[in-house]
């Protein structure tokens, strides 16, 4: 719902507000706002890879392969952290702020909301990793792992939508 309302705001800004270009021109210039599409693509690859590693972690647990579980979760946490650090770096160098027209507001609202979800997912997965290291999960009982992993896939799905809608199309 929250993402839906933010996307609605983004599309409204994009469709209803008359702009000759998208991203629009910077106020008082003939230069449009620029988005770091390539950097975001790297972030997309990182996040998709993290979903694969976390899926590997769950599959390993189901096969009673604990080393795979720990390695998968560790890799996922590292990739999630890398995603956040790259996004912070992107914010620092992007050249516009949330105050720059509806474009800036909706861009930071959408990507920031997603970043907050990644941060929460990272917390969940870190706790899951700590519990896994203590041997808390088994092939039979692992709901405490499966739920944060489903959440992580959801975060990944949302990023793909954000990436395609905001950066590519």
């Amino acid at each position, binding site marked *: 719902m929250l993402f839906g309302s933010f996307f609605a705001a983004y599309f409204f800004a*994009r469709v209803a507000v008359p702009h000759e270009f*998208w991203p629009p021109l910077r106020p008082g210039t003939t230069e449009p706002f620029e988005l770091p599409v390539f950097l975001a693509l790297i972030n997309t690859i990182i996040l*998709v890879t993290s*979903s694969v590693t976390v*899926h590997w972690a*769950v*599959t390993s647990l*189901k*096969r*009673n392969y604990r080393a795979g579980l720990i390695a998968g979760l560790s890799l996922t946490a590292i990739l999630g952290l890398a995603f956040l650090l790259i996004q912070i770096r992107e914010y620092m160098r992007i050249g516009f702020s949330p105050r720059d027209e509806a474009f800036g507001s909706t861009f930071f609202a959408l990507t920031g909301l997603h970043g907050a979800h990644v941060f929460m997912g990272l917390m969940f997965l870190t706790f899951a990793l700590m519990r896994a290291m203590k041997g808390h999960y*088994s*092939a*039979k009982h692992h709901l405490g792992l*499966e739920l944060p*992993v*489903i959440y992580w*896939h*959801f975060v*990944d*799905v949302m990023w*793909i*939508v954000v*990436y*395609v809608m905001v950066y*590519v*199309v």
Partner: protein
Amino acid sequence: MSPFRSEQDAFQFLLLVIAVAVATAVAGILGNGWTAFATLVSVVASLVVGVRLGRRSVESESPERSTATATATATAGVPGLALLVVAPVDLADRSLAREVVAEEGTRSVRAVLFAPEENLGEPASQRAAELRALLVEFDVTAQVIAVAQADVEKAVAAELRDGHIDHVFVATHRQGHSEFPAEEELVHAIDRASDTPVVAVAFASS
């Protein structure tokens, strides 16, 4: 498929979203925003219609079963989760096969069908062969045996010892059926005897 039902479903949903996103992105790059929007709507609509039609055609298929053939193990060697299915002979039908295939990532099945000793014989073997053929039809490697009810725990223990089994799937009759108490006890016995996860699913008699 609900992405919230299990991790496996969520992962499959993610792969689906990636495919749709790639199509939308390509359309957006080649055309414009509206082209991408039209592509997104048509791809999603096609997927929804395709899934619904596929589900309806599976549900409306005739209950006739194909006979067992020598191609039963044609897909052997395909990686994925291995499932041990334990079921009364009279529940070994298309509903069971479909439910087994719906289990996350099932690619290989070893099935132990059981019946009272006096009912073992040609009909039980026929059911076993039919179940195997149904599973192969769903592109799953299948080996099916039929044993006497008294020997089922022993047969399950042997299967768990010999084969690499990821899950045990026990089919039971519904609560209220005369066989249900014994089958429920069997589920508990299998669960106690092994560390392998056990799933019990109740089916209506066919």
